[in-house]
């Protein structure tokens, strides 16, 4: 089995008496209310998805990540994982103190062992992570809106926040047992935030030809208006796998996490998380984790050159389309025909058809998948 990032899978979850004690402490200790994205970060740290991180980053780690895309022990890590609070809140907290972290429902979810408080430059963070200062970029806008002070320290999870997708939520320790049980020695991870079209299926099955299993790993979380709802994405994948995959070769497990839209940096981050789940390979397509035209189409593939020590193999895919002459899915390396023969897998076009209640042509989307989507009164986020 592939090693977790940093060799050891982190688990920072309190059980039994420790958990009971923490719940008692939660009644008296100072606390911070976190948004959904930070709660997800806390859980991802605690369950080992973000191994080797054991908490929110201190200033040294933060600066290293920002400037070199590596942790202070030289391990690849491209995205700062930080906890921001208002100045007034930070002032009241003391280094060495335990702080209770709460979710949006005000339930205590974790203890932060406060190690450091530090100020940072939001513009610098945004520019280095997203390679742009443009506030139209959703990641830049989010960072610009962050609070003044960052807190660092290890965390211990007291309890998981409820999720309607509990049945699809596995921890790395569980996916590793799952892969072992299935006898998969090589596993390819597929990151998605969409319902599957034929192009996705082509990429997944091409990768699956060279590996033992495919790990479809949709990112679940807050979405933009017009995106497919999380439950629709999961139902559509279940339907695709039921009709067109070998059950013993494919699994769907969610990753509850915020999309940062950091393009190349985020591609490395996604690879690290899948490595922790036990994947030996990851599919990186055109403009992975990109948004708008902020990154060149293959920047998210080129960046892997800088990380020969990542420990997971990226499988790069070019842009693909359906060729009417070949009567199959092709890419620029496999098809000699003119672009006029090609039908692109345009998410926008498929969405438009679905909004009109129409089933997209079978060369774009499996009819069973389209039907499942159309079974929902409104499959899109409002």
């Amino acid at each position, binding site marked *: 089995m592939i090693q977790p990032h940093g060799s050891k899978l982190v688990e920072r979850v309190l059980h039994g008496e420790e958990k009971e004690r923490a719940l008692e402490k939660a009644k008296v200790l100072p606390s911070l209310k976190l948004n959904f994205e930070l709660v997800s970060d806390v859980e991802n740290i605690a369950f080992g998805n973000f191994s080797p991180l054991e908490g929110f980053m201190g200033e040294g780690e933060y600066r290293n990540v920002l400037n*070199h895309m590596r942790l202070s022990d*030289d391990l690849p890590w491209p995205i700062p994982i930080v906890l921001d609070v208002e100045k007034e809140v930070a002032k009241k907290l003391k280094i060495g103190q335990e702080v209770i972290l709460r979710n949006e429902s005000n339930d205590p979810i974790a203890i932060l062992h406060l190690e450091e408080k530090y100020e940072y430059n939001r513009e610098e963070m945004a520019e280095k992570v997203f390679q742009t200062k443009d506030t139209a970029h959703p990641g830049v806008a989010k960072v610009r809106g962050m609070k003044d002070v960052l807190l660092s320290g290890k965390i211990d999870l007291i309890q998981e926040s409820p999720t309607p997708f509990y*049945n699809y939520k*596995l921890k790395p320790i569980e996916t590793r047992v*799952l892969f072992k049980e299935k006898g998969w020695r090589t596993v390819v991870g597929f990151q998605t935030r969409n319902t599957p079209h034929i192009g996705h299926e082509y990429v997944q099955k091409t990768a699956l030809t060279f590996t033992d299993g495919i790990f479809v790993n949709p990112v679940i979380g807050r979405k933009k208006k017009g995106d497919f709802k999380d439950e629709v994405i999961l139902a559509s994948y279940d339907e695709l796998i039921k009709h067109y995959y070998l059950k013993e070769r494919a699994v769907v497990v969610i990753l509850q996490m915020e999309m940062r839209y950091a393009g190349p940096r985020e591609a490395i981050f996604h690879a690290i998380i899948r490595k922790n789940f036990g994947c030996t390979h990851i599919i990186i397509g055109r403009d992975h984790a990109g948004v708008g035209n902020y990154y060149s189409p293959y920047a998210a593939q080129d960046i892997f050159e800088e990380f020969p020590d990542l420990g997971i193999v990226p499988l790069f895919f070019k842009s693909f389309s359906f060729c009417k002459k070949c009567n199959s899915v092709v890419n620029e390396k496999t098809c000699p025909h003119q672009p006029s023969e090609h039908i692109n897998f345009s998410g926008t076009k498929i969405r438009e058809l679905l909004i009109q209640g129409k089933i997209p042509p079978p060369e774009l989307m499996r009819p069973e998948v389209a039907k499942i989507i159309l079974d929902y009164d409104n499959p899109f986020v409002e």
Partner: protein
Amino acid sequence: MEKEFTDVSIPTSLYKKIEQKIKGSGITSVSSYVAKVLRESLLKEEETQEALTKEDEEKVKKRLKALGYID
């Protein structure tokens, strides 16, 4: 605060050879090349530490079965 970079000595002839090798490769300096090669060689296949006891593994299998991931 610890320095972010440090010096390592390599023979001048080797330095020049690397300089030639990286021309037009996209690698911007001999230092970057050396760091890349060293990182590559340091990535070892070590045995994963078994994080679960047999009992815990059985619990995980039970959950995976209940969720339909394994039969």
